C-alpha cells in the first residue's frame, strides 16, 4: 500500500456550509516530493492540516473518509501519536515560534528536548539542521528579533530537525529571497533522496518544475489534475482555471500564437525555454 493513502476524504470546518475538502483521493509513495498548487481558498492548507492530524483532532468539524500514513490511520490515532511521524510547517511562520525560548538554537532544539533526545545528540542535530537552512549565524539571536525570512527559516528548521517520515510544508518559502528559495527546494529534494516523503504547498512554479516528482492542482477542495510537473504546469486546464504559470510558459504560449514557438510542448523551466527559442 502507498505510504500516504487518502480515501474519500471530505471535511467541513465547524460552523461552515461548504466542505473545505470534498471526496479527495490521493496516494503518495515513500520518497516522493509532491507539490500542491491551487488558488486561495482551494483547500491547500486544509489538506496540510489533514495530513498533519490537526484536521480533525485540533480543528474538530465533520470528517468522513480516511487518512493513512505508513499504515496507521489518523482516525484511530491521537494527535500526540501522529506528530511523531508527521511534521508541519505552518503557512504563517510568524505563528510558529513557540514563545518559550530565548535563542534561535533553543527554539530549534525545543521539539527534540520534549522528545527526550539526549543532550549531545540534540546539539549535533540542531547544528546540522541550521547548516542546511543557512541560519548557523543566527543561533544566539532572539527568535523575535528576526526579519520575516529569517523567522521563516527558523520555523522550517525546527520541523526539519525532528526528521519526520512525512514532511508537510505550507508555503515554506513565501518570505524568502529568490536564491534562498532555490536552496530550500534543493535541500528538500536531497531529503527525499534519503527517503523522506514531502508534501509542499508552493506557488513558485519554476522551482516546482525543477524539483517536484509530482504536482497536484486543487480546486474547490478537490483534485483538479495531477501528474508530472512538465505536463501539469503547461496544461490548458491550468490557464482556464486561473492558475499562475511560469513566465517561460506564458511567453511561449504567446509566441506560439505568433508563430515564434515551433514546438508542441510548452516550456516550464529556463532551459526548456532556451532550447525551444533557439531552434527556430
Amino acid at each position: 500500500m502507498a505510504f500516504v493513502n487518502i480515501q474519500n476524504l471530505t471535511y467541513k470546518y465547524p460552523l461552515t456550509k461548504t466542505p473545505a475538502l470534498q471526496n479527495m483521493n490521493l496516494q503518495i509513495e515513500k520518497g516522493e516530493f509532491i507539490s500542491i498548487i491551487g488558488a486561495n481558498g482551494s483547500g491547500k492548507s486544509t489538506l496540510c492540516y489533514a495530513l498533519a492530524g490537526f484536521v480533525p483532532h485540533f480543528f474538530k468539524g465533520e470528517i468522513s473518509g480516511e487518512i493513512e500514513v505508513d499504515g496507521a490511520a489518523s482516525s484511530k490515532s491521537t494527535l500526540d501519536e501522529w506528530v511523531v511521524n508527521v511534521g508541519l510547517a505552518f503557512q504563517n511562520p510568524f505563528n510558529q515560534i513557540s514563545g518559550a525560548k530565548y535563542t534561535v538554537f533553543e527554539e530549534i532544539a525545543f521539539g527534540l528536548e520534549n522528545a527526550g533526545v539526549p543532550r549531545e545528540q540534540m546539539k549535533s542535530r540542531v547544528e546540522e539542521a541550521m547548516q542546511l537552512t543557512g541560519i548557523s549565524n543566527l543561533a544566539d539571536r532572539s527568535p523575535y528579533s528576526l526579519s520575516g525570512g529569517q523567522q521563516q527559516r527558523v520555523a522550517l528548521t525546527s520541523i526539519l530537525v525532528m526528521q519526520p517520515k512525512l514532511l508537510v510544508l505550507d508555503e515554506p518559502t513565501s518570505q524568502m529571497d529568490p536564491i534562498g528559495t532555490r536552496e530550500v527546494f534543493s535541500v528538500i529534494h536531497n531529503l527525499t533522496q534519503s527517503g523522506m516523503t514531502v508534501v509542499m504547498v508552493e506557488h513558485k512554479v519554476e522551482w516546482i518544475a525543477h524539483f517536484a516528482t509530482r504536482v497536484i492542482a486543487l480546486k474547490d477542495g478537490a483534485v483538479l489534475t495531477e501528474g508530472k510537473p512538465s505536463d501539469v504546469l503547461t496544461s490548458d486546464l491550468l490557464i482556464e482555471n486561473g492558475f499562475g504559470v511560469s513566465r517561460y510558459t506564458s511567453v511561449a504560449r504567446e509566441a506560439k500564437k505568433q508563430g515564434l514557438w515551433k514546438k508542441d510542448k510548452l516550456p516550464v523551466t529556463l532551459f526548456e525555454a532556451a532550447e525551444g527559442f533557439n531552434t527556430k
Partner: protein
Amino acid sequence: MKIEIKDLHFTYPTGLEALQGISLTINSGEQVAIVGQNGAGKTTLVRHFNGLLKPTSGSVMIGDWDTAKYSVAKLASRVGYVFQNPDEQLFSRDVLTEVEFGPKNLGYSKEKIDELVKQALAWTELTDKTETNPYDLSPTWRKMVALASIIAMDTPIVIFDEPTTGQDFANVSRIAHVIAELKKQGKTVITITHDIDFCAENFERVIALSNGKILLDGKAREVLGQEEILAQTYVDPPQLTRLGKLLNLKETVINQEEFLNVIARNVG
C-alpha cells in the same frame, strides 16, 4: 510628496546595525520596488518612513517633516504602511470597521470616508466580506484587508511590505491593479518584494539593498540586468531577463512584450 533620506544609520537595541548609511531621494509619484536578501534591512528602512523607527543618526524627511520630530500618528496622514505580517496590523472585529478606522482617524468627512472605503474594498475584492472577522480569513485575505485599510487612508505615500507573498494569480493581479490605480492618482508607491517578475512588470525604479547598504538603485531594466551584483544580495534577475541572457540577446529584456519584440525582430 518627496522623501529625502540622508546618511541614515539604525542600530537595534540588541546592538545589530541594520542600516549602515543610506542616502536616497524618492520623488513625488514614483513607483519604487525594494529588493534584497532576507535580513538586508528592507523592512527596517521603510519603518523609518512612517516613524515606527527613528534614525540612530542621519535623517528622514517626508515632505517638510523630519520624522524624528513627528509621531507615528501624525505621519499616518502622509505615509501608509502595510505590514509584512498582517497580524501585527489588524485589530478590529470585522473587515468594515478595520478599513474605516484609518480614514476616520484622519478626520475626513463622512462622504469622503464612505467613498474611500468603498473604493478600497472594491479594489481588493472584499466588498462581500465586510462583516467577516479578519481572523476568520486565511492569511492571504488578511493581507488584502491590511492593504485595503491602508489605501483607504488616501495618503500621498503608500508602502507595501511583501504584498504578493502567498497570493494566488488573481490576487497578485488585483495588487498590480491597485498599484497602477495609485500611480494614476499621482501617489508614491514603495513596495518591498522578493517576487522579481512582479517587480519587473510593475515598477519603474528598483533599489537593491544588501547588508544595510544600497547595492544598486536605478531604472528597473538597468538594475535587474546586473546578474552578478544582484547575486550578492541573493536576488535572481527576472525569468525573461535570464532567458534573454541565455539566448545571447543584445539588449536586456525584462518583460514579455519586450522579449517577444526582440525575438520577432531576430526572426524577421
